[in-house]
């Protein structure tokens, strides 16, 4: 019958198109998660020590889910065109598993977006920065990360240099308050890496020290990436849901 043939062809066309979009989105998701995991802002040591590295786990899952989506979309296209029940059943089951993994990654990324609070970072910085008796290797990594962060973003502490004055710290145990009210990277440095005006920096004269905190420089990129992984994953899942429903309907109509 010509009419039902047309309907079938339309359904096949829609499913092929849906699978093409899933494949491309899978590649995009893999690319985004690889970019995030490659640690472009050097913030991974900070997140690891605050036990907030679940965002990285979500990104790792996103990499493999993206590749799986691409492979499965090809399988789906072949199965739809050949109208093969076995191929489509395999496709549906594997897609459901991928759906479940992407759901987990998405929810994890969304949950951990808000868990990086200033107090958490402040406590970790005070306890680990320039720790002279490092409990393990992560303390020296924290110190290196903070130094680079303060030098590149021209910031000091989490909320400002007063963090070093309001609280005692591991830094304070080895550096006297009179010589180092705050660490040297908080001073405005010249091309050789020396403070432009050391006394001005120690006194807190505006222009010779960095008065803003580093919290925005940390939470900004992390939140952006977590949001990207979460919402892009959510969009892919909604589209995949529609394609899968169509595929199930198509599969149930194939005669044996």
């Amino acid at each position, binding site marked *: 019958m010509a009419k039902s043939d047309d309907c079938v062809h339309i359904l096949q066309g829609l499913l092929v198109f849906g699978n093409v979009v899933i494949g491309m989105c899978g590649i995009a998701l893999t690319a985004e998660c690889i970019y995030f995991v490659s640690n472009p802002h050097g913030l991974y040591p900070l997140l690891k020590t605050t036990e907030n590295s679940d965002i990285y786990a979500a990104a790792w899952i996103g990499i493999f889910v993206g590749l799986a989506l691409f492979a499965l979309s090809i399988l789906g296209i072949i199965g739809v065109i050949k*109208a093969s029940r076995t191929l489509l059943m395999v496709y549906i089951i594997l897609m459901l598993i991928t759906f479940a993994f992407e759901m987990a990654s998405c929810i994890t990324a969304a949950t951990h977006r*808000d868990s990086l609070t200033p107090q958490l970072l402040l406590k970790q910085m005070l306890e680990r920065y320039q720790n002279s008796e490092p409990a393990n290797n992560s303390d020296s990594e924290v110190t290196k990360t903070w130094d680079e962060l303060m030098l590149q973003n021209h910031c000091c502490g989490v909320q400002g240099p007063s963090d070093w004055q309001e*609280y005692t710290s591991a830094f304070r145990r080895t550096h006297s308050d009179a010589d180092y*009210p705050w660490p040297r990277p908080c001073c405005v440095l010249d091309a050789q890496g020396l403070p432009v005006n050391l006394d001005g920096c120690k006194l807190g004269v505006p222009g010779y020290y960095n008065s803003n905190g580093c919290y925005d420089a940390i939470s900004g990129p992390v939140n952006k990436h977590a949001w990207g992984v979460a919402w892009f994953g959510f969009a892919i899942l909604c589209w995949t849901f529609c394609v899968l429903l169509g595929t*199930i309907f198509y*599969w149930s*109509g194939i005669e044996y």
Partner: protein
Amino acid sequence: LPTPPARLPYVPHVPPGALLGKVTATTFALERPRCVFDGHADASDAVWLAVAFANASGAFRNPPSRAEVPPYKQLPTARSYMTLETAAAAYSCSAPSPPVLRVGSDTACRDQGRQDPCNGPLPSPGPYRVKFLLMGCSGPKAETRWSEPILLRRALSPSTIEPAPARHGSAVVVIASILASLGAVLASAVLGALGAKVWGFLCHRDLGTDAFIRRSYRTHHIPPALPQPLRPGCGWSPPGLCHSAPQPPAPC
């Protein structure tokens, strides 16, 4: 009998401007007095800063000569000391100079245990009171008034920081609930489709009529049966030939 030093009305104070480090845990800054000692100071005179605990400032006695100036090391016992010896010319009206003085900036003074007057960091939060003292060859010539008590910073331990529990925004709830419902719908759709097929298979229903998607129909080609060749005398009488007496057919 030495004349008592002239009392100048100037009150030392912490600089009023926005300086983040003007009071730290072991140091503090003072606004540099300008034009305060003009008229009292000679070229050879020196201006000292006397620092005392706020409750010991009343008991402070000006030293009669430079040799008897209490050094930094005596602060724990004498509850006061003098430091920041500067030529009086540095405080005159025309002297270009940085606008603040920093008390406690010389850590070598404390670490090396020096006996001479130096500017070591303050050991406790205080509070402290300061005054400037103009000393000449024969003793103190002028003094300012005592400052208001200056309290240094006290630092808290980082264990007092309570990491605030993260409040999950409503977006997380939206994402989680929508995804969970999508997953449930999908799972039930797959189970429903599978179940319908299995049930139909078990009831031996003809499924061919339900299917709307037909694959290429592979027909089994049955060739039409060809007529068998004629065998004469096998009990088959050709039409038109009449025999008088029908004979039973002979076996072939």
